[in-house]
């Protein structure tokens, strides 16, 4: 079954005219014969439309800062925001020093009405003192929620004063929820803060070992990062810092010495990737460790970049061994999944990343999209110069960096970089659309109404998304796969992750429950024939 522009148009007729006009620009039928297809993204959410988007605070504290395990993350604001971001992403972490892991904690200034009226700076300062006295964390972050900016609390000043009192870094993030149009604004704010204050402050001036890399935009959901690190370490890479899954402040400080930055989730971390290149001369490589081929391609591209015979050889050896090991298992699952179709609507990168893995199982992605991505995540980075900043994006301060006087070091020559860019995605991202098949639907900021309408029209066999739409989908009789939290499963990245994913998806297809939805008495009598009375 396929939809064309006309069908889409008819579907959107349920909206008021203005809303329809707006939403039309966010949905398209992919058609590679057109030179270019433009999609609108990262614009204001329509009020009253039940969106899946969150706020800047969620992007800043919830996504980027939260996983840094050895920092205490204080949420300055009323209790709700802090509570809701407490342990809700499944970013896992182990800490070498078991005391320097605060991921299971929720710290909130719990502002009350009086704090709103008289200001909450004193309370915040006192809380920092308490936290330092009790936990002795390596550093502290403060994330502001909506009311903070409005009442004029200066968290930057409180942070600075606290730094002087305690001699540790205290970073303030003005990520009030109303900033920008989604989580995306918060990613940017967090990126700026970490780049400005943390990265580059470590004492290392060069990489301690060969093949030193950073892994950016990997949040270790369900242990993804651990599977990726397992593979990288075996090949011979030295991972300096992960941003930010199972990441730490201590490691982040030395991220500037890496030879290459890998970018998994482009949306949430591309600002740091770019700034690292400008400030320290380290290029970044777009990788995708979801899916077997994605993982293989990423590893090979890394080997091409480092251009070391032994490393290349080891890369191929590991790939060959892993593939031989998991291929037969994947084959079995493939038999259960072959020929099915999927919707893949997730965040800002997974909507793209999982398509390859689905395809490896014989599942075709017929609809994909992102919650809070920008046009470049759909159309590729080439469109960036065309994207005009609007009032909302202008509200997010831009951090401009220049080459660091002491630490800037070109990791590869411009000539070689230019050459490599022809073959590998070096400092470049092609976006989601490049990999989609013609006729599939691309949709930005999918909402509740459209979810339902599109499911009815396209009848996918599985819907990969988050918990907010999971139950809508399941009630419609279609299996859902949460790709934010993995339904308590995972890892899904790398080679072992692919197997886990295949197993979970197969389970969704084969669970017998769906067979029972129509009760037998609706179809046939229990006893054949008729029973005559008397």
């Amino acid at each position: 079954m396929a939809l064309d522009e006309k069908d889409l148009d008819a579907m959107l007729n349920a909206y008021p005219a203005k809303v329809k006009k707006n939403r039309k620009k966010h949905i398209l039928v992919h058609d590679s014969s057109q030179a270019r297809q433009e999609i609108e993204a990262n614009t204001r959410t329509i009020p009253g439309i039940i969106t899946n988007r969150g706020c800047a605070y969620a992007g800043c504290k919830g996504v980027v800062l939260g996983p840094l395990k050895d920092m205490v993350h204080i949420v300055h604001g009323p209790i709700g925001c802090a509570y809701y971001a407490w342990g809700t992403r499944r970013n896992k972490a182990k800490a070498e020093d078991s005391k320097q892991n605060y991921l299971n904690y929720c710290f909130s200034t719990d502002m009350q009405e009086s704090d709103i009226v008289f200001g909450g700076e004193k309370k915040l300062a006192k809380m920092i003192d308490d936290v330092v006295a009790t936990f002795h964390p390596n550093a502290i972050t403060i994330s502001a929620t909506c009311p903070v900016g409005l009442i004029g609390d200066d968290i930057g000043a409180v942070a600075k004063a606290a730094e002087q009192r305690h001699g540790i870094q205290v970073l303030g993030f003005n990520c009030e929820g109303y900033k920008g149009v989604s989580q995306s604004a918060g990613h940017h704010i967090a990126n700026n803060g970490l780049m400005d204050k943390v990265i580059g402050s470590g004492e290392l001036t060069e990489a301690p070992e060969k093949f030193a890399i950073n892994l950016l935009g990997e949040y270790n959901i369900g242990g993804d990062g651990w599977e990726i690190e397992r593979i990288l370490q075996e090949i011979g890479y030295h991972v300096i810092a992960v941003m930010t899954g199972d990441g730490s402040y201590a490691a982040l400080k030395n991220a500037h010495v890496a030879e290459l930055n890998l970018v998994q989730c482009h949306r949430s971390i591309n600002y740091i990737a770019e700034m690292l290149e400008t400030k320290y001369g380290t290029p970044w490589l777009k990788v995708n460790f979801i899916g077997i081929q994605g993982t293989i391609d990423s590893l090979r591209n890394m080997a091409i970049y480092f251009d070391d015979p032994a490393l290349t050889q080891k890369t191929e050896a590991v790939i060959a061994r892993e593939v031989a090991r998991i291929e037969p298992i994947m084959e079995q699952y493939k038999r259960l999944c072959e020929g099915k179709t999927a919707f893949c609507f997730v965040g800002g990168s997974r909507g793209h990343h999982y398509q390859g893995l689905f395809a490896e199982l014989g599942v075709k992605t017929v609809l994909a999209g992102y919650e809070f991505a920008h046009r470049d995540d759909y159309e590729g980075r080439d469109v960036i110069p065309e994207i005009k900043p609007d009032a909302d994006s202008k509200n997010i301060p831009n951090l401009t960096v220049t080459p660091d006087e002491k630490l800037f070091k070109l990791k590869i020559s411009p000539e070689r970089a230019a050459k490599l860019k022809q073959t590998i995605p070096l400092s470049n991202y092609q976006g989601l659309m490049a990999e989609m098949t013609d006729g599939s639907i691309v949709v930005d900021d999918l909402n509740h109404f459209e979810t339902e309408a599109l499911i009815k029209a396209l009848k996918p066999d599985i819907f990969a998304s988050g918990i907010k739409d999971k139950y809508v989908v399941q009630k419609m009789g279609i299996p859902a796969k949460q790709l934010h939290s993995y339904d308590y499963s995972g890892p899904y990245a790398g080679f072992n992750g692919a197997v886990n994913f295949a197993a979970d998806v197969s389970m969704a297809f084969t669970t017998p429950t769906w067979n029972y939805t129509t009760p037998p008495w609706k179809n046939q009598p229990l006893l054949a024939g008729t029973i005559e009375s008397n």
Partner: protein
Amino acid sequence: MDTNVHFRSATENPCKMCMPMGAILPFKGLENSMVLIHGSQGCSTYMRRHMAEHFNEPIDVASSSLNENGTIYGGEKNLKQGLDNLMQVYAPEVIGVLTTCLAETIGEDIDRITSQYLQERGLLKSLIVPVSTPGYGGSHAEGYWQAVKTIVSHLATATPKHSKLNVIIPDISPADIREIKRILAMMQLDYTLLPDYSTTLDRPLVKPYRKVPDGGTKIEDIMAMPGARATVQFGLTLEQNLSPGHYLAKEFGVPLYNLPIPIGVQNTDLFLQALQEISGVAVPAALQDERGRLLDAMVDSHKYNFQGRSVIFGEAELVYAVCQLCLENGVYPVTVATGSKNSPLAQLLQPKLTDVDHPVEFIHNADFVAILAHSMDANIAIGPSDGRYLTEKQGIPLVRLGFPIHDRVGGQRILSVGYAGSMMLLDQITNTLLAEKQRGYRQTMYDTFYRGADRLPDATLPNSGLRGERHEL
């Protein structure tokens, strides 16, 4: 790390959520209703996420999606637009409009904006119920009652007397609501139960799927609440200004039975006694049997339960009722805690503690660090999922009850009201104590009796031996 310190200046691992979160729930229990939260979209997205995880149901809550612009020029335009869109796509019969910290801080007057909106569009007053729920104004429990109270005060209209009974409930599970309804039916009562999210938030899997679920309290029934023969409200811990039952009594003279949640023998007895008084129908034999079975279960388990020392936490109303159940069974509380700032829990429970041979700590505005600091001598915790912190830090097993349950399935179908429900909850408490005991009692026996008296754990010290082993003979 010294976890015994409680940050007086702030909250660490909170035992509460914010007001609008609690206020969503009652609206989910109205027929054909939708909710719109006036603020930035983050709040509603977070709340949907948390509620979906507890109820395992779609939670559709709209937002006016305010942004920086709105914080400067006000959010009126966004709110009205949001209402338009909601009406067009969902055609609800009633819309709850809730505020957030953001809306309140910038001073949005949602009463004015919504009534103006209704006028402009020529719509009925009953279509929109605006509720002021600043996140900093109280916990989710207060938000819940603020919403129920406002629904009643906004919709109730003077009505001729009729034979229905008003039943107003706190945040209990959909399974609990169904049990209350079963009991009401057995007592042959015709009633308006508010809010009734027993199906809307615990929907059967049937085809076809409907966007706005069936079920919920009918708007016309709420309007007619002033004509009811009486109100039964489970709201013993409620402040009067938040109490819909008191409102109906004061404004319309509806007699109020303000009762505890029927958990435990005495609380359920109170409920049935009230129903018998109101209906004139004697408690039927089937219910008397259920009562007898609960008593029988209590006798069977009392020797295990008597070793229980409980930490009971969560929303005040539920905490009160669970304390009663525990007191009836010897699972004496060590710590009683709620995230609410003011609640009469201590006054209400203090007189019932005469048999308890240890001090009982009451904590308001509680967080889990404070709760843990006072629970070193406890061997069972009863409350929502976040209590797992007590298990992780101190090995206190947790019986999950209340809202939210986000690390287990089935929060929506935990049954604990009525004689039958009380028995199920009690069995769970008893079995948790037994499991804890069986986990290590051989070792304790060995350590206590075999290795000799010089190794005997000091029975006067808390934490000697295993949890649950202390007064064991």
